């Protein structure tokens, strides 16, 4: 690891803006790191060094010309492979989109380019973001930088692993049921699911439209906030985008403070199925927050126990429709011959992996005539009850906390044949997706039994994303002081 790759995004942007280092040098250092470690981590599906360097040199030229530089000037960002970016493929981790080069740019990546970021490569993911381990990728799994035999979580596991292994200081993910927070937790980094509608979905290949939320990864709370701020904001191209100012997340990340803050522990998220080390670190975090002046109480959200089943009706229903377009007619894989119907069927059979097919079938059934009310309709009612649970809780606490996921990173292959076990990884994260509010995972230490990272989930009401960063920054500062160094420096997988 070079001196440059160990720097934070905030440090890099400052150094580049000050002319202490060029964006090209920074990008080259990260490309070298990718060359050195990614054959082990397998975070990236696509890296175009020439393109990355040319983006970096453009930043250097702007600096040389005295033009104003953006907040992320010259900072490399790893991009989950479901964002459309002009000039690079977007496979979504699926064989059915192998070789597809989108002809248009997603709003989020366009904003990042405008902020001076260097899109350094496209990262691995569970196929169409369905999974919690990246094992469902059509291009093989990614590996956890803490222990290469473990999964990096998912579905945004490639971006999380890239950031955790210093291949990029920042990463883009999407969170539909926990796909940013869970990989952040098991990779020992920070990851945020912004308020639904706070970041544009235009150019983000859809998994479940009413749940998908693009969001940031970083190694520090401040870096994560910088990316959060740069990628967010109203987008007229996305009807579900919220027309409101971006919450002051960077300001909050610079001023971590929980004194007087009312924090609620979700009482439903503990007990059977929660790994002891996860609960140890969670309890420790609660004590820390109290010691910092927060008022911590327990809050019951009685309908959260129905969140997982409701999610597995709503998300697959939307999947069954969103993924219909992959039919071999216009782009991506085309297999077989004969009538249009035959080609469509054979292409879909050949191109989709098992988990995607499972969810398409689930959703097709849930929406079908005669079952709609009992499945999709009922799940939407549950969704309303979960929103009410949140509303009631936020009536007397400022944020809610829980473990982000019940366990630390599990072995590659361990849950591959057990979808239910895999689905449980998102037990604690799904309610925020169903409600559309904001949530973050911030590292709080290592599980004593296996030395793997554990995170803390903080949840806030819609458009109160800044509260997440206030809490996360306070936790990060206190724990780093206690340890004397950032948690991630203890990662052993690549040493």
């Amino acid at each position, binding site marked *: 690891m070079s001196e440059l790759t160990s720097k934070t995004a905030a440090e890099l942007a400052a150094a580049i803006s000050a002319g202490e280092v060029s964006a090209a040098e920074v990008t080259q250092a990260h490309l070298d790191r990718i060359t050195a470690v990614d054959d082990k981590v397998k975070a990236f599906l696509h890296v175009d060094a020439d393109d990355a360097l040319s983006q970096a040199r453009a930043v250097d030229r702007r600096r040389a010309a005295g033009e104003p530089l953006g907040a992320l000037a010259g900072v490399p960002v790893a991009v989950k492979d479901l964002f459309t970016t002009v000039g690079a493929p977007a496979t979504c981790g699926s064989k059915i989109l192998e070789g597809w080069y989108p002809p248009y740019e997603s709003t989020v990546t366009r904003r990042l380019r405008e902020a001076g970021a260097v899109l350094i490569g496209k990262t691995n993911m569970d196929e169409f973001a369905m999974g919690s381990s990246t094992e469902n990728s059509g291009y093989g799994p990614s590996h956890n930088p803490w222990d290469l035999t473990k999964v990096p979580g998912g579905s945004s596991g490639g971006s999380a692993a890239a950031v955790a292994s210093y291949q990029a200081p920042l990463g883009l993910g999407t969170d539909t049921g926990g796909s940013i927070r869970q990989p952040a937790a098991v990779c020992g980094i920070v990851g945020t699911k912004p308020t639904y509608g706070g970041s544009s979905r235009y150019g983000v290949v859809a998994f479940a439209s009413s749940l998908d939320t693009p969001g940031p990864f970083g190694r520090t709370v401040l870096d994560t906030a910088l990316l959060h701020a740069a990628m967010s904001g109203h987008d007229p191209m996305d009807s579900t985008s919220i027309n409101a100012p971006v919450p002051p997340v960077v300001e909050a990340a610079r001023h971590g403070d929980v004194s007087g803050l009312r924090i609620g522990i979700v009482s439903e998220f503990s007990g059977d199925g929660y790994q002891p080390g996860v609960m140890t670190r969670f309890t420790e975090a609660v004590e820390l927050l109290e010691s910092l002046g927060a008022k911590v109480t327990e809050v019951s959200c009685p309908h959260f126990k129905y969140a997982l089943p409701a999610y597995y009706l709503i998300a697959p229903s939307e999947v069954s429709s969103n993924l219909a377009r992959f039919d071999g007619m216009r782009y991506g894989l085309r297999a077989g011959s004969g009538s*249009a119907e035959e080609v469509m069927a054979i292409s879909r059979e050949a191109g989709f992996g098992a988990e995607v097919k499972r969810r398409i079938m689930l959703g097709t059934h849930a929406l079908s005539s005669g079952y709609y009310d009992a499945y999709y309709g009922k799940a939407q009612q549950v969704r309303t009850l979960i929103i009410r649970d949140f509303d009631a809780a936020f009536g007397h606490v400022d944020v809610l906390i829980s473990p982000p996921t019940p366990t630390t990173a599990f072995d590659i292959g361990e849950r591959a044949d057990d979808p239910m076990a895999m689905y449980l990884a998102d037990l604690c994260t799904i309610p925020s997706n169903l409600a559309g509010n904001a949530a973050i995972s911030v590292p709080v230490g290592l599980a004593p039994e296996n030395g793997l990272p554990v995170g803390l989930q903080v949840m806030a009401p819609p458009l109160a994303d800044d509260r997440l960063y206030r809490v996360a920054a306070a936790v990060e500062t206190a724990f780093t002081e206690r340890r004397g160094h950032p948690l991630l420096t203890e990662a052993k997988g690549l040493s």
Partner: protein
Amino acid sequence: MTVSYEAALQKYEPVFGLETHVELGTLTKMFCGCVTAFGAEPNSQTCPVCLGLPGSLPVVNERAIEYAIKIGLALNCSIASWCRFARKNYFYPDMPKDFQISQYDEPLCTDGYLDVAIGGKTVRVGIERVHLEEDTGKSLHVGGATGRIQGAEYSLVDYNRAGIPLVEIVTRPVPGSGFLAPEVARAYVTELRDVLRSLNVSDVRMEEGSMRCDVNTSITLIGSGTWGTRTETKNVNSLRSVERAVRSEVARQAEVLDAGDRVIQETRHFHEDTGVTTSGRSKEEAQDYRYFPEPDLVPVAPAVDWVETIRKSLPELPSARRARLIEAWSLSELEFEALRNAGALDAVEATVAAGASPADARKWWLGELARRANDAGLEVAELPITPADVASLAAMVATGKLNDQLARQVIEAVLDGEGTPDEVVAARNLAVVSDDSALTGAIDAAIAANPDVAAKIRDGKVQAAGVLVGAVMRATRGTADAARVKDLILERLA
């Protein structure tokens, strides 16, 4: 066909209903900024959104909502204060997303009606709903004998049409028209077309597909009080075809029932050439569209103020105009329908406004001008003559400056681009010759040239005078008043 329509009607009561798709005349598509112009190079008016590329998202065209509300108000519907789009899921290559964004159980407009005048009476057709959706692309099947997908070697798809806003206007079933059912169906579509045209929300050209009808037809034994099984006939793309499709489907269903079989609920295709329908896919084994609310769009909630503003901006609708003109011009229903069917309403009204009497305006537009339009294969409104021209012509005839024959010459000259009627009259020095002395020479010459005719007239065969009148008119190049010429000839030969 062994059962005729007439025979079928002895025994069965027909019920029909119509689902009419209308392409709205917005400049851009329903959910993206692509232009909607007809006839462009295939696939030149597309973008990631209307091509349904992965990651693209729809954004509602507010103008399309406004147009649909206009239509709903003109059809006396209630406008929903809150409604949603829904996805209709099915696989087809010309549908880029393999689902269509449409509306399902929450349409924008509901519960209206349209009064249709036919043969002097009025039939009220109930409107169940008016909803918005996006059009599909257009498939071209190449290499087969029929142009249909069956047997084609390959198919090409043009996505220019994909995403063009459509409204679907669905009637309630219309019973009770009896023998007139096919004509009522046609009259409904005609009236609907006129309403849409007056609203200026669509060019409603059935031949270009901007207005397309599906006709639902069923029959039931007269007096049974039950409904028969309906069929849905697609591809009915002219007013005449609407009428023929109902007629042929009633006869076909009567034949099926008479044979002791049951009518199958199915989609049928209308064939313009033969006027009959053939079976398409059966609805009984039809796909499940798995409708659910479109999660990429937020609900549509038109503000009450906005709807009222739109209501106030509605133009005079055809039914109101009809009542007004029948009253103002003292027309019968049939005279009005003749005027409307000739497409001459606007022209006549403008001509009256320019000073002509309603009778004169109708006479010229339905007579000489309709004939010339027909010869030229044009609509009367497309003729290169203005209502003001026709009014000025009518005035010259009324004051005796021109007679009808001269007026027809002036029309011809105006249509040939020689200028306004005043300019033509001046340039050609046309005017009725009212000075008898100026005619004397011509009359004498005509008598001298036709001694046998003159003899007959002297013998009392007055009708023979036409030959001499014609000769005088030819000699004066039509400038004479024919009635006066006849009088003068009879005086001379008395």
